[in-house]
């Protein structure tokens, strides 16, 4: 995977600065198979892109391993009614915090976001802005 990043980088150097900007959105992981790496996620943002990481501006190679709160505490039922639990996964702006920041595992994140959306619909959580 490291070689892949180096080859287009070399090509970019040859072709000129423009391809480098085209390369950057690629590296943010949208079209690349690195998406499967992101699912291994809690280990670190992009372990495959590690060597390419420092180039982006000094991001650390590995973040400390975050564990899924629901898996460790064995909370099975994520209900839209327990606002305090849900509010811990919602940002100040009211947005749902991405998995890579909270360390939640995929199935729990899916249920959590469904619960948050239900809570928003019944005015227990705001759609945008701080809950007064």
């Amino acid at each position, binding site marked *: 995977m490291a070689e892949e990043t180096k080859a287009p980088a070399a090509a970019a150097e040859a072709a000129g600065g423009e391809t480098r900007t085209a390369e950057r959105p690629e590296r943010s992981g949208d079209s690349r198979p690195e998406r499967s790496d992101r699912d291994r996620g809690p280990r670190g943002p992009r372990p495959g892109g590690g060597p390419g990481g420092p180039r982006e501006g000094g991001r650390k190679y590995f973040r400390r391993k975050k564990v899924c709160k629901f898996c460790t505490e064995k909370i*099975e*039922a994520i209900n*839209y*009614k327990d606002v305090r639990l849900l509010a811990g996964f919602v940002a100040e702006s009211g947005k749902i915090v991405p998995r890579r920041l909270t360390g939640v595992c995929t199935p729990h994140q899916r249920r959590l976001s469904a619960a948050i959306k*239900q809570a*928003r*619909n*019944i*005015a*227990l*959580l*705001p*759609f945008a*802005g701080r*809950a*007064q």
Partner: protein
Amino acid sequence: MNRTYELMFIVRPDMVDEDLNKLISTLESSVTAAHGTIKSEIWGKRRLAYTVRRFNDGIFVLLILEGTGGMVHELERRLRVTEPVIKFLTVRTDEELKRLDKIKKLRESRKKASAAPPVTPEAGTEPAPAAV
């Protein structure tokens, strides 16, 4: 055939207690007429996360129902027409309850198997953990 639902609705905050009870009893009668069961919980006045119909607070009521989809449809129709009700949300819960039940049973059987010395029939009857 009988499904379980949770119906949460919000009533305007300036509603009197007895009117609220009257409303709940009308809903209860329509549920029992459709051969379902109902359990109601009044959560009381709460601050809403955003303004709904120019109200900032509301009285939350939770109904736990058992019945057919048609019954719930009728209830929702009534709530839509009732003027003091400003918001409602119905969630189907039987699949979720089934899942939670399965997990609880799995955990209990695991605990029993670890507590008692593992006898072969017991290990044989222990359900293999399918994709949980």
